[in-house]
């Protein structure tokens, strides 16, 4: 009996789950050698990076941002254009791809995050629109609707990341690191401060927490992580166009987090996976895709508050508590 209990406890243990997850990621390219499956894994990893900052912002700052597609696109275009037009080294382009959206987010955040409520949501919606118009209309810089071709593969110095399998490792290394980074933040002084802000901005202020400062910092993080994701995307697919970075994507990302659960990392991973496989999910009934998606969203919000992972998390906690008795 006791061994079974211990075993069950072990299975519920987050560290073991994480270990199994990382193990699967490590052997994935060896087991699933088909290009299609590796693509699924790569895009899931990219979406993890894209979602990780946003989940902190929505889940812990409690504000909406619809700028994610714009930051994603900004990262993709920054590193694509720097490497194709100006011949900048890819790793430099990659860094710039994180920096530019980060700076943009910082500027926008500083100007608007002192305001409460829906104003940031509106400004980010507008930003998405402006970005889309800009890349579509500025033919001479961005190639307009036809986009940027011939983006070189990722490379760090002499090491070129060309095969899908090696790309898988690069993407997931960054994805796992960003997940760890975000988890560390939530489990620490900064995480407590964010929860305090969510609980009461007034109480947080009198305890010495710089409310708008934290909001701006986390928003900047959404920009940086989206920019990195954009660069990873561009250097993998080698061709980008405005259609990859639409407002629809921004809305989708917010919604998918609500379904997965904004408060924890598994929600991010789940959302990323779902985003990747969703287009193929219903097979021949694809035209019902969005309808089904909308209904799932509504049902999750009604019956699984906190998102799917939020509920599973509580169930596991409950089961653990019972087993420990």
């Amino acid at each position, binding site marked *: 009996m006791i061994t079974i209990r211990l075993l069950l406890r072990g299975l519920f243990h987050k560290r073991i789950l994480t270990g199994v997850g990382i193990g699967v990621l490590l052997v994935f390219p060896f087991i699933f050698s088909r290009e299609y499956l590796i693509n699924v894994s790569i895009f899931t990893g990219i979406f993890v990076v894209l979602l990780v900052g946003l989940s902190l912002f929505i889940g812990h700052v409690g504000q909406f941002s619809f700028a994610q597609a714009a930051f994603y696109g900004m990262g993709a275009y920054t590193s694509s254009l720097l490497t194709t037009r100006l011949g900048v080294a890819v790793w430099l382009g990659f860094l710039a791809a994180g920096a530019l959206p980060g700076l943009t987010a910082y500027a926008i955040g500083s100007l608007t995050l002192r305001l409460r409520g829906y*104003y940031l949501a509106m400004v980010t*919606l507008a*930003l998405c629109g402006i970005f889309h118009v800009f890349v579509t209309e500025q033919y001479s810089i961005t190639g307009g609707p036809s986009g940027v071709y011939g983006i070189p593969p990722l490379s760090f110095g002499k090491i070129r990341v060309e095969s899908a399998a090696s790309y898988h490792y690069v993407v997931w290394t960054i994805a796992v690191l960003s997940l760890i980074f975000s988890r560390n933040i939530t489990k620490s002084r900064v995480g407590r401060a964010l929860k305090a802000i969510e609980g009461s901005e007034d109480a947080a202020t009198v305890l010495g927490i710089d409310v708008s400062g934290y909001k701006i910092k986390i928003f900047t993080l959404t920009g940086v992580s989206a920019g990195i994701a954009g660069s990873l995307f561009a250097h993998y697919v080698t061709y980008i166009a405005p259609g990859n970075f639409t407002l629809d994507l921004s809305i989708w990302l*917010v*919604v998918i987090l*609500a379904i997965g659960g904004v408060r924890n990392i598994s929600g991010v991973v789940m959302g990323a996976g779902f985003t990747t496989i969703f287009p193929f999910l219903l097979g021949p009934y694809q*035209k019902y895709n*969005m309808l089904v998606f909308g209904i799932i969203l509504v049902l999750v919000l009604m019956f699984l508050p906190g998102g799917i992972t939020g509920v599973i998390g509580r169930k596991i906690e409950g089961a653990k508590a019972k087993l420990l008795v």
Partner: protein
Amino acid sequence: MGIGEGEMTRSQILQFVISGITQGSIYAMVALGFTIIFRTTRIVNFAQGDFVMFGAMLVATLHNLFHISLLPSILLSILIVAMIGGAMEITMIYPLKGVGIFPLVMITLGASIIFNSSSLLIWGVDPLHLKGFSGDNPIRFYGATLMPQTLWIVGAIVCVAVALFSFFRYTKIGQAMLACSMNDEAAASVGINVRMMVLSSFILSAALGGLGGVLIVPITMVMFDMGVLMTLKGFAAAILGGLGSAPGAVVGGIVLGLAESLSCGIVSSGYRDSITLFVLILVLLVRPSGILGSRFIKR
């Protein structure tokens, strides 16, 4: 010749102003819908634009396909959209009572996705169209042309604005709806049925959206996915005017419409949307509470 050119420009400007006011009136209608729901519930309803879409698609279908005459088609469309709004409140908003704003706003996004995709399944991707209510013969107006539909649209927004103003100012139910937004518990304690107020606000704001949709069909192509853009523009107008302020919604709508159409004359049409959004951001930075708003924002 110089004078001639001057006149030419003036009439062009007039043309832009006319089309700006027309478009802006529709935005104002959507923004008013936002305002009503926001004032009673603090929710920003992302499905607001889809009410416009439904109104537009329904009236075109009823009139063109089922050959119902115009006025009954219009009334029926608005009624159906109002019912959709009510159904949305009953099935999605009410069950989520008391869970905070985030899930509620998300569920309106969910509603929008459902509305959008159902519309695609029902009507497909082809745009629909309808003749102007009073024909499509343009009226000459100081060198510019004026579509008769413009008069309908502008007339409608004026009537709606006056009616809403009187409703909130002078009727008990209007006052009660405002009281909800101030304080749920206090409203309930003075005997206001908060539930009914929220339901009415959804029905009313859906009906407004439906009306906007009905009015817009003759001047534009309407499609299953027009709701998203309408939501965006309406939200922008509401924020521009000051979220929560009804006069602000009207002013915001008109200003947005004018900014759009006048910027058409200045830059290429591809930039139109980004100019408007830029104007919006600028206004928010200078006057964070919007043109007429003040009460609903803290700095």
